[in-house]
């Protein structure tokens, strides 16, 4: 399901299946994109931040067009305990690899992989010097 922002339109509530993973896409060339994501985060239930949220940063292939610092995105990821993935949609190889990663994450979040749950992502987020 693609949406431009949250909250999702209520008129489609009855048509929507269970949401297992929320991927926030941030275009590194647009400050508006980051702002939109930050506003939308407020509409996500807290339980999703146990591994069912992920940030996907796109447009990283063009270094000259960056409007957002990767530092601020990484801080966002840390604040919400969610992984940050970087990709360039215009490169087919990267696009396909990222899609495969997301599908694998989705499978875990949906509970299709026995023995692994979304909480595993949270433990992976902890920095090694925290222990």
């Amino acid at each position, binding site marked *: *399901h*693609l949406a*431009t922002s949250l909250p999702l339109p209520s*008129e*489609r509530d009855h048509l929507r299946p269970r949401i297992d993973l929320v991927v926030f896409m941030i275009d590194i060339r647009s400050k508006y994109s980051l702002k939109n994501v930050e506003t939308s985060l407020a509409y996500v239930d807290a339980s999703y931040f146990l591994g069912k949220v992920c940030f996907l940063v796109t447009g990283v292939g063009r270094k000259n067009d960056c409007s957002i610092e990767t530092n601020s995105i990484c801080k966002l990821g840390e604040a919400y305990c969610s992984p940050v993935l970087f990709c360039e949609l215009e490169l087919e190889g990267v696009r396909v690899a990222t899609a495969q990663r997301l599908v694998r994450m989705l499978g875990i979040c949906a509970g299709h992989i026995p023995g692994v749950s979304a909480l595993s992502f949270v433990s992976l987020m902890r920095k090694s010097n925290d222990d």
Partner: protein
Amino acid sequence: MDETVAEYIRRTVLKIPRDEIKMMLQEWGFLSEAQLQTLNFHQIKDNISQEVVQLCEENSADIKQAAALDIIYNHIYQNKRMWSVYQMKKSGEELEYFDITDFKKKFKRRLRSALKNVTITFKEYEDNAIWIRVAWGTPHKKPNQYKPSYVVYHSQTPYVFISSSVLKSTLPLLCQALIVASNYHDIREMELRSHSLNSLKDIVFKRYSQNFQTDTPKPLQGGNVEPENADIRIVEENKSEKERIHRLNQEVFGSGPQPKLEFAQYRLETMFKSDPKMDVLDKKEPFRCLVKFSSPHLLESLKSLAPAGMADAPLSPLLTCIPHKARNYFKIREKKSLYPESFVSP
């Protein structure tokens, strides 16, 4: 043949891309087909231009012919110049029959009475456009052929398109001559400028597709908005919002291609409104600020802002009024009334 004429012809030919030289010389018609056959268009341009000058020497070209070649070049490469639009006003409602010979005679007479050293060249094109090239001199110097002014006049309209010379003082003279020759009594510069002459014409002649409100707007089918979305596994949550934006865009911009402008400039002379606690600019003076939007194709980029998610629809009327108001330079002043809003000055 005069050396300055030879040099001018040589430099004009050098400007032309190699593949187009033959075509332009043919349109010029000054060199015979036989002479054109002797030219080798596969050598470097330096040599081609030298050979052209040789042939012009044989035909005893003068400045008039050289100027004619320059008009042809500038007509084809009109988008290299910056054009401004002027509107002429008639005193009465008399519909006079336009006589091209009379126009040319009056124009030349008016200019020459003010300035003896001018080169004036006319060329008419099929779309009723009269192209005028004027090279300016002084009472003591011959005209500078490298800094001419170009005028495009459609005789059935009150509009004149001018690409003025860098010699700024020549503009009033040019305007004077135009109104005298065309039997108008006044001329004013519109706040509309662009490199694309055709787009300027589209705007003032209202030739671009404008959307007129109809009583029964066509209902938009979801399929029209995203035709490439063939995968049924992808669900658009904000489809109705996308459709709303698309509909608003259609209403504002129409469905056809937009005229090509490169800038929109807003000169703000409004008061700075800040938090009174911040105590910025305690002097109650207008905050002078210039906002300039530039783009290779400004109106198309404005049209794509909302669908791309980069701006909210509807866009500010200050941006969307550009083609309707036929202007892309604005002055925004404070409205001196009970309602402290800014308004756009005429």
